């Protein structure tokens, strides 16, 4: 009985190991940033506040952001699939876009955050009082994203 219990504890510890281990991040590549798993609590509600917003920095009148219209369901899928780009590594590989959508997300643990996404699948997530998290979702291949 004691042996079986010890075995159960051992298996339990092994199963728990990945949770405490260092996150499995992919290394930087020439055209892709390092990416780490994005661990978020379950999402309760997503609100889209602004769609198709053109950056005030954009001076090219031909840039048209009207196609960047996202839904709460799309953002939910985005946040589920996106990876976190470690701070300081995103500068050269991620594409900057002058079109964005933004809003808020409420999590099951009661916390909320502000999100934003661009057409090029680059996003951000900001919890109150925490540094901005840069996100990238290479597997989010659905419109209105461009890939």
């Amino acid at each position, binding site marked *: 009985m004691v042996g079986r219990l010890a075995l159960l504890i051992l298996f339990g510890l092994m199963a728990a190991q990945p949770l405490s281990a260092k996150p499995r991040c992919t*290394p*930087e*590549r*020439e*055209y892709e940033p*390092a990416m780490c798993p994005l661990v978020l609590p379950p999402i309760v509600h997503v609100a889209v506040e602004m769609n198709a*917003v053109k*950056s*005030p*920095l*954009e*001076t090219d009148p*031909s840039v048209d952001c009207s196609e960047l219209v996202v839904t709460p369901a799309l953002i939910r899928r985005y946040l589920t699939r996106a990876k976190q780009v470690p701070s*300081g*590594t995103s*500068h*050269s*590989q991620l*594409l*900057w*876009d*002058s*079109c*964005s959508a*933004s809003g808020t997300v409420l999590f099951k643990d009661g916390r909320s955050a*502000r999100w*934003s996404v*661009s*057409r*090029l699948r*680059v996003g*951000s997530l*900001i919890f109150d009082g925490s*540094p*901005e998290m840069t996100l990238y979702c290479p597997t989010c291949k659905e419109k209105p994203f*461009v*890939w």
Partner: protein
Amino acid sequence: MRKFAIERDAMTAVHGIIVHQTNSPTATSTLNGYQRPKANGAHFLIDRDGTIYQTASLYKQTWHAGWLKSRCVLEKRCAPSKFNPIREHKREVVKSAPDRFPSNEDSIGIEIVGEALPRGTAVVDEKKVYESVNDAQNNSLKWLVSGLTTTLGVPLHEIFRHPTISRKNLTEASTAKW
């Protein structure tokens, strides 16, 4: 000072110079980042006080240019196609310079310490503005560019701010002067 973690394949020709800003608060934070395995980085780093660090050999490529924009579209020699920066880059990289912009393969990168601000706020990246390049940094940039263009035979019209050649925050290096 040379940080070999950012050096890649041999660079056999230099066709241009790309001027960047680091989007980091200090030279130290950038230099620390250059020690990560397979880190991206540029050949030179100019600190806030104008100190120039050489961070990679000029005989080696570094990953600093990123995805290329279409040069012929910007120079109005061809018509723009439907917005797709990834396909645009794939069409560009198979061209030879100067039909395309200088790339990782054939350009020197110069980073200037400076951040896109405000940092860590709810302001989306699309609205952040890079801080101005200061006089000490611009003086060093002029001196460095002068030396590089003379030594490597790079014409002045082949020196670009990063957002000119790649889809980057439009204010990056906008106040850099050389």
